[in-house]
């Protein structure tokens, strides 16, 4: 049986066939045929955002929380360009997102038509792949291929640009090609598993694992550093087994947080620019570092020339291009974190590292930050942990609060910390949290932002109300773009240029959106207010009036060595 279907209807069917259930989008001229067809496909729940950037971030949040592809839709021109930040964030953090954009009709392309932009050209460097659909007969296969590419190997965003006349074109529909263009592609490099050693051609996977096991066996001061790859491949049990079998302490990068339980005796914390002193000193003293699913980015390493000067590095990553990109490696193993870690567990001999762990314990500094009053980030985060009984997903924005959460929130469950790490996109938390809720409708999600980042995408409160998304919003209000102000304090002679930022009355603002809003000024109010907000059936907003000039300590100056942190001066920290 065949029937005549429009490109728009084929697009909807292809999304349904790919298992898509939620799409985040915003209609407009060039995508109208798609929106015309959409109501015929009730399986596709559409979330009407207030800005296309939020659609991309929400799709990203959905993807990170579910492990499935997040889908966002926008019209041509400004709709498409508004997606760009969200796609760049998804690209930097390896998140599987498929973006569908309307485009002006084919005869108009290249003629500077109304709302025409070359979105394929614009997104080339921030997508794994992108398509301009020139023939409606290719559309279903392209959607299937895009969905496969987004999750295949190292995940990432894919964009499909569909001209309006292609959406309107009707063809005889016989269903998508069974094979699809995606299936004939060779497996990604990493999927095969290869080991790389400098100066040698790729050796076998087994050789790499054996070499890594030998290094671990001979190490006196070994470390495990785990990143986002462990979460993407769900290698939690394998990493934990490896750590417990060998007694090697574990460092979790910003995107690796929650891959290993906080509070485990072997868990050290986050490294890098805002890593605790003992974590960075452990790195600087280590003789072997086994990195699993991380890319040793500059916020982790500081100056690479002085990073881990005594360590021989084993780097396990799915993306072969990451091996040796930022730091020289002794052993590089290309493959899935879970698979390789499982092999490594089998290859290593049981051992202990008690003296080394004790040595690291000697590096631990007592936190010396002080805050005006007692409404500290610790106290706020503890109240969220208690109100949610430790069972919620935390989505953070970018800045000081992001670092406080990364350092202080006691994550116990895997993949419950979601943040924009690589791109560092302010405005991420609120829309991404909407996506997280849709991926985990039974769970609680808290979007934690500063007063700067919250104001970037706070219009999404309307989306939450209209679509029934019970996101809990926490706003850490210090009246500054706090992280920039902190840099100005340290590196720009305390010239607080353009960092003081005015906020509306958030309680009234929430009320205007018919959302319960609360303001917390004293720690004594925390348990009651956060508890009430957490128990709200719908969205809720809590503003925390925190110390204005609190800093995130310690801090490695940009490009500096992990050995030379700026640490808190007790007298100066309380707001000079």
């Amino acid at each position: 049986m065949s029937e005549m279907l429009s490109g728009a209807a084929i697009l909807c069917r292809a999304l349904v066939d790919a298992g898509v259930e939620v799409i985040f989008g915003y209609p407009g001229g060039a995508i109208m045929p798609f929106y015309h067809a959409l109501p015929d496909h009730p399986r596709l729940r559409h979330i009407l955002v207030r800005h296309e950037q939020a659609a991309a971030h929400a799709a990203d949040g959905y993807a990170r929380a579910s492990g499935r592809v997040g889908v966002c839709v926008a019209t041509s021109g400004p709709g498409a360009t508004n997606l760009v930040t969200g796609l760049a964030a998804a690209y930097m953090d390896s998140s599987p997102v498929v973006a569908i954009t309307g485009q002006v009709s084919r005869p108009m392309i290249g003629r500077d038509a109304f709302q025409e932009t070359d979105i394929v050209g614009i997104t080339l460097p921030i997508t794994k792949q992108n398509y301009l659909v020139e023939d409606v007969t290719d559309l279903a296969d392209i959607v299937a291929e895009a969905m496969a590419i987004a999750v295949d190997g190292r995940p990432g965003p894919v964009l499909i640009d569909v001209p309006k006349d292609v959406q309107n074109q009707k063809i005889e529909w016989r269903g998508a090609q069974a094979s699809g263009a995606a299936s004939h592609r060779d497996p990604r490099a990493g999927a095969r598993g290869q080991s790389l050693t400098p100066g040698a051609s790729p050796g076998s996977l087994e050789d790499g694992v054996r070499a890594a096991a030998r290094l671990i066996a001979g190490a006196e001061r070994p470390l495990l550093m785990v990143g986002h790859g462990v979460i993407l491949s769900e290698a939690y049990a394998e990493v934990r087994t490896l750590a417990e079998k060998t007694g090697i302490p574990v460092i979790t990068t910003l995107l690796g947080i929650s891959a290993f339980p906080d509070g485990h005796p072997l868990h050290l914390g986050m490294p890098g620019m805002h890593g605790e002193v003992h974590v960075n000193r452990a790195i600087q003293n280590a003789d072997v570092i086994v990195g699993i699913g991380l890319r040793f980015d500059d916020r982790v390493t500081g100056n690479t020339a002085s990073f881990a000067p005594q360590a021989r590095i084993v780097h396990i990553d799915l993306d072969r291009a990451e091996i040796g990109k930022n730091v020289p490696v002794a052993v590089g193993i290309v493959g899935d974190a879970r698979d390789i870690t499982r092999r490594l567990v089998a290859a290593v001999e049981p051992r202990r590292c008690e003296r080394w762990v004790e040595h690291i314990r000697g590096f631990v500094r007592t936190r010396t930050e002080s805050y005006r009053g007692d409404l500290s980030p610790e106290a706020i985060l503890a109240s969220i942990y208690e109100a949610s009984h430790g069972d919620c997903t935390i989505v953070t924005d970018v800045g000081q609060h992001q670092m406080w959460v990364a350092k202080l929130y006691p994550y116990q469950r895997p993949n419950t910390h979601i943040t924009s790490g690589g791109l560092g996109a302010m405005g991420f938390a609120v829309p991404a949290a909407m996506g997280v809720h849709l991926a985990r409708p039974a769970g609680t999600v808290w979007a934690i932002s500063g007063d700067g980042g919250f104001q970037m995408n706070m219009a999404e409160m309307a989306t939450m109300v209209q679509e029934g998304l019970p996101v809990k919003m926490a706003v850490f209000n210090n009246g500054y773009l706090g992280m920039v102000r902190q840099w100005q304090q340290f590196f720009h002679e305390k010239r607080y240029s353009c960092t003081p930022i005015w906020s509306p009355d958030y309680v009234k603002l929430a009320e205007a959106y018919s959302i319960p809003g609360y303001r917390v000024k004293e720690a004594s109010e925390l348990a009651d207010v956060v508890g009430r907000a957490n128990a709200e059936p719908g969205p809720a907003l809590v503003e925390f009036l925190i110390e204005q000039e609190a800093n995130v300590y310690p801090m490695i100056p940009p490009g500096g060595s992990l050995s030379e942190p700026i640490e808190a001066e007790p007298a100066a920290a309380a707001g000079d």
Partner: protein
Amino acid sequence: MSGVSAPPPHSAHTVAVLLDDALVTLNRAFGVLRRRNVPIEGLALHPSGTAGVSRLTFVLKADPLTADRVAQQLHKMIGVRSVMVLANDDSSTEAKR
């Protein structure tokens, strides 16, 4: 900026890339070079002999590490079938799917 030490000597590396015969793939491949601002000399695009596959050949002026990074970045692109780097000393490495 990263720590500055004496830059390794630049040498010529001939890079041969087999990739899908599509302008968007070619554009993406050039993007890898443009983003890293790697100087290239000589550039040729020819049919490979296989339908739908082109051969892109260029000469890279870079240190061996940079040449390898460029090859790895090209290699992971969707639409790239193989990347071969030939150093001026005739040794070659192949990054193959």
